[in-house]
């Protein structure tokens, strides 16, 4: 089975994020980058599928020079090859633009299954996987917590309010991951050495037949970026009894917080 994983490199959640001077982006100089956690589930699931069904796992990413690190990590985990679309135009892309670029690569790549993170934790767009499926005219199943493939069909489970649903579709399919799908493995040290010898194709937009002027052009634009307002200090309600405290709380909610 040929499996493609869509992977994005994002700032590590442990990094200290600062908003840049332009107030529309973040400062990227001093931050550490990692594989988007939802994409890490995708890599793990793809490797497990390969281990049971055979085939190969290809990592596909649109990014910069730095993104090589993330792809190499996925290769060290056990993926077989990587494709990086590295083009200055990608920097300014919106979700739809990224999806268009990834889909353009996939038009010429054979695959049975595509796995993507439900969202990237930096931009939180929830769009790329979905749009890629749309561009390729294949079924899309979102936020999967369990999957099973038999006879060319995939059955996916996902949670819905108060329960779960099982969806079925004929391959090729694109599904996106939800927390709980699996526990990603570490890139083992022998894996890191083996990754060195695995193929990693780096291409520009032109190489994949896209016009960088048009393909990278965003249809949406970020106009402002702000931190959430700083939390005010909490207040502990004093009182002799629960009844007294409840009364004081209701009063505070009405008079001070004005929420009821």
């Amino acid at each position, binding site marked *: 089975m040929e499996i493609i994983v869509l992977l994005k490199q994002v700032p590590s959640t442990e990094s200290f994020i600062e908003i840049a001077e332009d107030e529309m982006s973040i400062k990227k100089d001093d931050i550490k980058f990692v594989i988007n956690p939802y994409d890490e589930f995708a890599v793990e699931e793809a490797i497990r599928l390969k281990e049971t069904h055979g085939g190969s796992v290809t990592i596909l990413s649109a990014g910069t020079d730095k993104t*090589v*690190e993330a792809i*190499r*990590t996925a290769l*060290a985990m056990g993926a077989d090859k990587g494709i990086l679309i590295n083009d200055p135009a990608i920097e300014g892309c919106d979700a739809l633009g990224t999806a268009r670029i990834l889909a353009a690569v996939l038009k010429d790549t054979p695959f049975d299954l595509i796995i993507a993170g439900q969202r990237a934790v930096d931009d939180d767009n929830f769009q790329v996987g979905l749009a890629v499926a749309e561009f390729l005219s294949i079924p899309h199943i979102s936020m999967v917590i369990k999957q099973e493939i038999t006879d060319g069909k995939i059955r996916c489970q996902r949670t819905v309010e108060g329960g779960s649903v099982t969806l079925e579709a004929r391959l090729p399919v694109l599904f996106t991951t939800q927390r709980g799908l699996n526990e990603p493995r*570490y*890139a*083992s*040290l*022998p*894996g*890191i*050495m083996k*990754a*060195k010898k695995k193929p990693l194709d780096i291409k520009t937009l032109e190489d994949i037949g896209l016009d960088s002027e048009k393909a990278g052009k965003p249809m949406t634009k970020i106009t402002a970026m702000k931190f959430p307002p700083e939390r005010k200090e909490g207040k502990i309600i004093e009182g002799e009894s629960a009844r007294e405290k409840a009364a004081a709380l209701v009063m505070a909610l009405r008079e001070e917080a004005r929420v009821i």
Partner: protein
Amino acid sequence: MIFSETFEKEIMLNFDLTKEQEMIRKEVRRFAAKEIAPVAGDLDESEEFSVELTTKMGEIGLFGMFVSEEYEGQDMDYLSYIIAVEEIARVDGSQAATIAAGNSLGIGPIYYFGTKEQKKKYLPKLCTGEALWGFGLTEPTAGSDAGGSKTTAVLDGDEWVINGSKIFITNAACEMTMGVTVQAITGTRPSGKPEYTCFLVEQGTRGFKAVPMHKKMMWRASNTAELYFDDVRISKDSLLGEVGDGFHQMLKTLDNGRLSIGAMGLGGAQGAYEAALKYAKDRIQFGQPICKFQAVAFKLADCAVEIECARNLLYKACCLKDQNRAFEKEAAMSKLYCSEMMGRVVNHAVQIHGGYGLMKEYDVERFYRDQKLLDIGEGTSEIQRIVISRYIGC
């Protein structure tokens, strides 16, 4: 012109690690944070060697990093191995000890001096972390002074017969131990000095007993053993190298081992320093974080400087070794400096934590204890100074 260009390139210093080395650091750090950090304090407290954790460390490839793939090793350079030890030590000294001793003392001598058959027999299991191997040098009467050794081996027909005992042997008496390399006296040299030879003794050999040692101050989750040899008979080919090679093998093994002890000092210092820096930013006294007091800030600045120096020295020693150049002097310097440097750093780290630093709830308490071994094991600080002073021509 061309000549001078290449010449310029060759003498240029390069402080960057390779991509692979960076990845190793990142992955081992992630592993240590997730798998070791949550249990390190408890294992220390209960003085428990963890088979589970050792197996996991084996699974990600922490054993046999410098061994060729032929024997299930990872075929990496020595610096990669040292970075891995450093990252484990950043979180816990005991687990770093299991790794460092397992590699430098357990795997090393078999890999460097063993026959093909011996390597085939033992290394695959040791390199995958399924089993451990000890290196028995120290005896109750022979610590710094190997000349005080009493353990002997006598050839009797087709068998060697070993008698004697060893003390403080790491990884030698746990459920995973497969055997030990033991140094014994096999005769007298023409100079009148004893002739030493190393032997491979498997666990379970008749007359060989390995007993765990308890009540340690440090490395409490690492396995330390006393070994007893009572007419232990082993086959003629259980010898490591040739008769009389023992002393030379021991020196070579310790040269490598010094790098990994250095890595433990460096990593431990890094861990303690990071904990102290974080604490100093969070702890408020007199209305401000204590890191704003110059007395505290300067301690942290000193730690940062010393750690940087230690890392440069240790990596340089590894770099020399990886290029097959003489590294022995730098290895001794690294062992001495990294170990004692960690002592200064943990002292500051506990001081910065105040009373809390003396409580087991805080990791620096464990780091403070674990450091002391580094001044003593694999050649005391005094012995390192003797070695270095000889190298510089005193």
